[in-house]
């Protein structure tokens, strides 16, 4: 109790001291008293970064002017080229018509392409879930995370189509190579996305569960995944949309079948612009449907979880 009285006395003492401060002349008071102006240069200093920035802009301007002044059009009539392209677009998009296949067959091929996208996203998601856990800095030792992150960064740096063509050496051009190559790229993409979602969970939460005796798998399933499940699902869905677009391209480029192959045949083999238009509309419709669906799902998830 003696101690409490002392603290009370000390508080009084501080208050007295504070009131005596008011009469003193402090440097901050001078701030109000002096009215002299100091001569000052421009606020933005010409440092190395801004000089480099200006040099880059100047260089690009000069390059652009030089490029247009020396461009060789050869014998192409630019105006005619534009109008011809426009006419092509007009037949493509204003008169879409499919004569080689029925609407039912077209839908069947869309389903094949969707299946390709679904399968590769599924394989990618499952493998990436495991790799993502090992690549998250709050869950795995630093050496392991660095190794995995470096590895998937290299895979991601090479475009999907290249991976498909690389695997086509072993599997031959076709759906097998497309699935392996697209899954490969999906794994690396989703590993990065998942591991970053996992890292959102504070290390201290993991510490708290470890301190109560929980082991690694329990922490992963009871804390890490519940905390990041909305992110995981939205990343997976984003990858599904990307894989759908990839699957269309792979159908054409790697002969993986589906609507992409039809598009390739219509455009490159039969030169049927109206069919190209028809297929493009179909793909756009599916893409919009996917987008609407995923936005809905995300909204619902955020509300419920």
């Amino acid at each position: 109790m003696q101690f409490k009285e002392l603290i009370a006395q000390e508080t009084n003492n501080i208050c007295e001291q504070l009131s005596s401060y008011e009469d003193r002349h402090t440097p901050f008071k001078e701030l109000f008293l002096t009215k002299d102006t100091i001569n000052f240069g421009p606020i933005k200093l010409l440092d190395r970064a801004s000089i480099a920035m200006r040099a880059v802009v100047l260089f690009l301007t000069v390059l652009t002017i030089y490029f247009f002044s020396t461009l060789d059009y050869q014998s192409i009539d630019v105006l005619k080229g534009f109008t011809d392209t426009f006419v092509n677009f007009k037949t493509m998009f204003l008169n879409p018509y499919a004569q080689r296949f029925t609407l039912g067959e077209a839908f069947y091929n869309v389903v094949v392409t969707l299946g390709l996208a679904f399968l590769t996203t599924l394989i990618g998601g499952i493998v990436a879930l495991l790799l993502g856990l090992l690549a998250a800095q709050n869950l795995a030792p630093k050496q392991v995370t660095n190794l995995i992150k470096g590895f998937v960064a290299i895979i991601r740096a090479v475009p999907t189509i290249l991976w498909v063509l690389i695997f086509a050496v072993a599997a031959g051009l076709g759906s097998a190579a497309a699935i392996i190559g697209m899954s490969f790229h999906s794994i690396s993409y989703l590993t990065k996305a998942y591991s970053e979602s996992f890292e959102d969970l504070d290390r201290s939460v993991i510490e708290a569960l470890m301190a109560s005796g929980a082991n690694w798998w329990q922490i992963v399933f009871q804390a890490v995944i519940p905390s990041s499940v909305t992110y995981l699902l939205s990343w997976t869905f984003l990858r599904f949309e990307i894989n759908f677009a990839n699957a269309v391209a792979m159908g054409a480029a790697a002969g993986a079948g589906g609507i992409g192959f039809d598009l390739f045949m219509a455009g490159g083999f039969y030169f049927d612009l109206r069919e190209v238009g028809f297929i493009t509309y179909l793909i756009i419709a599916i893409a919009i449907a996917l987008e609407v669906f995923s936005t809905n799902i995300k909204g619902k998830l955020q509300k419920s979880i």
Partner: protein
Amino acid sequence: MALLELKNVTKNYNNECCALDNVSFSVDKGEFVSIIGPSGAGKSTLLRCINRMVEVSSGEISVDGVISSSLSKKRLRKLRTKIGMIFQHYNLVDRLTVIENVLHGRLGYKSTLAGVLGRYSQEEKSQAYRIIEILGLNEQMYKRCDQLSGGQKQRVGIARALVQNPKIILCDEPIASLDPNASKVIMDHLRNISKEMGITIIVNLHQVEVALKYSDRIIGVNRGKVVFDGAPCDLTTRQIRDIYGSESEDLMFDLGERHAG
């Protein structure tokens, strides 16, 4: 025999001397011990050495007769179930409900698979429910933890520690982010837990007055050394100066002089 015993515990981070320097003390069942000291004195390290969240460099810690430093992973897990821990920032899984967070305290007792699937027995659930009720959270039971106030979150933290059936609860600055009202509620709960359930409470505190009011015993730490260990009534202003060192010299010097006079 004492419930918790530290013998010559030393901890160095990166070969630098010394987060903890030759710390020895023992704590009995049901004691309420406050550890005070300036920031960076080694309070948190000391607390985390007890459940081996931090490995000691040398020395020996025994909890309930078990020497913790040599335990295998599996037995360490078992030891940790006896030691609850609560934190300044609560460290709950925000997206889960109160009851789910409380039941997390049971994970240490469960097999990996049962824990992964979140299958808790009827007994565990009713125990969790009773604890939640005692702490006055039954209305929040199915709320997500990110919808709770700070004081409520800390009570969930206490419930999570209690559901472990611990012998010791370690509290790392439990009231540092709470307003005075919520702080009082939390400290009252902690004191009741130690008095009525016989659970040892070891709490890191920044507020000397709170430590004086609630503890059976105060341990003052400065630069990794125990500089005071005794009952609150024995704590003099001079010793507070020793604990908090030169940072607060001016204020404490005045206090000390007047105390002497």
